[in-house]
């Protein structure tokens, strides 16, 4: 666990929060970031960073602890056949299993999208923009 000093403010009113050095945040890793009382889950999926609102809207379980796997889909594109898809990109809530697309925050099977946050890499540091 690391505790970060507050970085200098760069944008007009957006704050950049240092999450970790790139070296310490390899593909497959995830960080739980608490900013005040808010919780944000940050993932490195195959070298790309994604940040999502960190509490499940169902009953508030911490999404940072969810597994990433695939899921079943069935739509016009699949010819209404059930297929396994999105391997490694489906964040499964550790509460009761609601599933979210880690890249977009969109919930599978619900008219619901988690808030997402921009993540930037600057000077070898992964930063969350809020």
């Amino acid at each position, binding site marked *: 666990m690391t505790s970060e000093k*507050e970085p200098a403010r760069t944008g007009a009113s957006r704050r950049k929060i240092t999450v970790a050095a790139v070296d310490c945040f390899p593909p497959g890793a995830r*960080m739980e*970031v608490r900013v*005040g009382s808010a919780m944000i889950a940050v993932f490195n999926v195959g070298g790309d960073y994604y940040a999502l609102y960190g509490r499940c809207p*169902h*009953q508030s379980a911490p999404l940072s602890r*969810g597994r990433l796997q695939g899921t079943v889909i069935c739509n016009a594109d699949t010819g209404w056949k059930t297929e396994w898809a999105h391997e490694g990109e489906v964040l499964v809530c550790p*509460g009761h299993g609601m599933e979210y697309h880690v890249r977009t925050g969109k919930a599978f099977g619900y008219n619901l999208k988690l808030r997402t946050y921009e993540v930037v890499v600057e000077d070898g540091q992964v930063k969350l923009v809020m």
Partner: protein
Amino acid sequence: MATDKQSVRVQRVEPSFNPVQDEDLDQYSDELSELTIVDVDVHVDDTLMFMLDYMEGHFRKRMETVLQADFKGEPGNSLRNMIAHIAWLGSSYDKPPRAKLATQKDLLARMEKGIIDYSILFPSELLPVGYLPEPEWAAALATAYNQYMVDAYQNLDGVKIAIVVAPQHPDRAAAEIDRHAAHPDVVSVCIPDVGVNPPIGDEKYWPIFAAAARHDLPISFHGIEALIHDNYPLRVAHFHTLMQVNSMGFPFTSMLQIMSVVCAGIPVRFPNLKFAILEAGLTWMPFIMYRLDAAYLRYRTELPALEKKPSEYIRDWYIGTHELEALPRRGDLVKLIDLYQGRDTTMWASDWPHLERDLIAGFMRYDMDDALRRKILGENALQFFGLKPRP
């Protein structure tokens, strides 16, 4: 938007292969620690292996045989898991993660947080006991379970036990109640209500109600998902997915048993007996109350023992909140509770640590006045189980 003043904490975490537990309590600890909290539906690891030493004679031999069977991956040759998971093995792609069985240590760690004042332990493994075809075997399992639970979980601060009875053997069930009723940690009689045939109001079961009434021990009905039971009511014979069976199974069973008990006049015959329904959610309560009232108008002469309309009996039943339905608006839960007149009878229940357990955030997000919240989180349960607030 984050302000510079907000503190920041970053922690590297790992994916959880078990459902997250207990952080929900930490999240609300400030709000909850001053209140009396009773969790009226808690489960510990009670798989069959724990009961072996409590079985005698040929049933002990039989239990040894059961424990040798190799049902891969299922802990302790779990009766309920064997049945549940064979039918729909893998249908949820292991999402959510497998529920862990809670050991006594897990339970005590949860209690030590100082938020929950009482945990009421209900069976997991013996919830299907109601549809085992052999009454003697069912009764032997219930006897072993009860003695194991009393031996293993008595004298723990805030831990109370619901003994289980096998309804298909009413005399043995009554004897179990007689045996354990005086124990200070035994606070209810659990009737696993799924598969009980004929329904539980039938005269053949009255010795169970008589025994509970004699000892002033409240009755709790606890359901279970459909498992292999094919048509009790609307189960495997009617639906091909676990989700459908699960959604209908609990409330349909509960409605059926409430109807059966009330129409048999049991609340009139045993006026002091208290009843609760667990693990069936809440939203169907107004339906069964007022639907029966409507029919009562026409068919009252079939039920001459009743002294008032059905809803006036059913409103006295206690009900556990789990599995709490997600109603669309924050004010909806109170509206629902008022519809079934349940301010004094609704009790918070988590079903910890099972997969479908309710995290307390699910309940806390609904708006209600503090007095009602206190009742649901603890005071109503103190009343139902006859417990005193802990200091």
